[in-house]
């Protein structure tokens, strides 16, 4: 009898869903898109190749509801620096720099629901990511509203990550961080294997944005982003030379507060039937990294369905307060930096440039017409970018890192039904 009641409820729900879906078929839109990115770089002593496929589906059963689900992955293969030393130490110790091969496979599944009104939308989503040595649970919410006849847009977002990173169990005799040993590989991570442990990382990200149309051809956007990171942020595999015969796992602070302000302007130039977009970003964090980013994009329509964009970007940052290219000594800026030590080039002072091109081909058939009889919209996009890095202090045992150029290429396809 109980089973019968449950069956009746299930049948009723299915019938209701079918009825709603059937009733709303005229408004029902499904979008499917997939993208494929390759990343490659081969600076001095190391190299990295990453292939990142993704697939997403979005359904809009009613005008006020979007439901999205997707998957993405990173297939990583390469070699990274395992032991970092600077010029003072390397001058008396040849071949002290070592590298280790890297093979990883990150999978991430995500889902999102958006409720849309005439001037307001609310979005909530969740993502779960897993790698051999890292797990991530991420939730985000977003509220957006238009004002003043859609000329002004306000947006608030918040995300919370509950992440976990794998590490080795340190010897009971290793009390000080300078005595800790780096993780040798990810074997046994996230199992009950002896010699493996995990550390938590909590990440809170807040963002507020104001968009404004100032004229029929000019609009701006001002965005403030703040992030609080609390937990193990070192690379567990990386060792740093601290003194004669002293090699220890990288050790950096657990807390980091970061904030950034980004100002963007888009200006349509009727003479070229295209737009110029300029973005300026200032960034500061509690590790004393300050950075500035300037990005310029020029996008032009070629006919009704083709767009091409050129992108240029300059970036410069200072180093973290605890950054040193050699913690064993030497003349400033080399030398010890207190209790923390790192071999991470991303925490060193450097500048970078980026140049890229992107092309987008879009087809939107006229009303009541479909491509091949069933496709409502079609978008194919491709892009290629080069980014070059110039490190002010970072060396591998005194050898400057040359050929630090990363190549990123993406192709994506989106279809609407």
């Amino acid at each position, binding site marked *: 009898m109980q089973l019968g009641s449950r069956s009746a409820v299930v049948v009723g729900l299915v019938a209701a869903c079918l009825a709603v879906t059937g009733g709303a078929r005229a408004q029902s839109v499904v979008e499917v898109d997939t*993208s494929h*990115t390759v990343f490659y770089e081969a600076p001095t002593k190391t190299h990295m190749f990453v292939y*990142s496929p*993704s697939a997403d589906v979005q359904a809009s059963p009613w005008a006020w509801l979007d439901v999205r689900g997707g998957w993405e992955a*990173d297939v*990583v293969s390469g070699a990274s620096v395992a032991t970092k030393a600077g010029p003072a130490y390397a001058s008396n110790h040849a071949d002290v720099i070592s590298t280790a091969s890297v093979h990883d496979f*990150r999978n991430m599944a*995500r889902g*999102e629901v958006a409720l849309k009104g005439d001037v307001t939308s609310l979005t909530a989503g969740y*993502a*779960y*990511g*897993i790698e051999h040595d890292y797990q*991530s*649970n*991420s939730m*985000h919410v977003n509220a957006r509203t238009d*004002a003043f*006849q*859609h*000329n002004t847009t306000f947006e608030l*977002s918040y995300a919370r*990550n509950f*992440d976990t990173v794998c590490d080795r169990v340190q010897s009971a005799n290793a009390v000080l961080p300078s005595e800790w040993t780096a993780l040798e590989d990810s074997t046994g991570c996230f199992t009950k294997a002896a010699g493996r442990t995990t550390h938590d990382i909590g990440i809170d990200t807040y*963002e507020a944005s*104001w968009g*404004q*149309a*100032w*004229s*029929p051809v000019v609009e701006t*956007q*001002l*965005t403030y*982003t703040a*992030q609080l990171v609390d937990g193990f942020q070192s690379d567990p595999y990386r060792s740093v030379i601290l003194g004669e015969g002293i090699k220890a796992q990288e050790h950096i602070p657990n807390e980091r507060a970061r*904030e*950034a*302000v*980004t100002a*963007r302007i*888009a200006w*349509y130039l009727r003479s070229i039937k*295209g*737009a110029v977009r300029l*973005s300026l*970003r200032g*960034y500061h964090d509690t590790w004393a990294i300050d950075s500035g980013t300037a990005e310029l994009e020029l996008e032009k329509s070629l006919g009704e369905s083709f*767009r091409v964009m050129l992108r240029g970007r300059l*970036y410069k*940052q200072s180093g*973290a307060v605890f950054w040193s290219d050699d913690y064993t000594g030497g003349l400033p800026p080399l030398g010890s930096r207190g209790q923390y030590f790192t071999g991470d080039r*991303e*925490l060193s002072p450097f500048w970078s440039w980026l140049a890229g091109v992107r092309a*987008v081909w879009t087809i939107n058939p006229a009303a009541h017409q479909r491509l091949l009889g069933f496709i409502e919209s079609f978008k194919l*996009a491709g892009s290629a970018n080069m*980014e070059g890095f110039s490190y002010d202090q970072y060396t591998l045992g005194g050898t400057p890192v040359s050929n630090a150029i*990363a190549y990123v290429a*993406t192709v*994506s396809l989106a279809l609407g039904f």
Partner: protein
Amino acid sequence: MRLPVFLFALSLLSLSGCATVAPQQRAILADPTMQFDAEAKHDAALRHALENREGSMGGTGVSGGGCGCN
């Protein structure tokens, strides 16, 4: 330092109500070339790569998951 920035932002914000673009004038603003993030999904992998090669973040949304920081 933060008070002048706040006051500047507030004064800019107060101007927003004065800037009105009539609906019939919004055709160009709706053009894809005028959208800051028209191809956000396509560019997501590039942004992810940049964040993992630089010490900064911000300005491109809050959602995300996983590290992928090799």
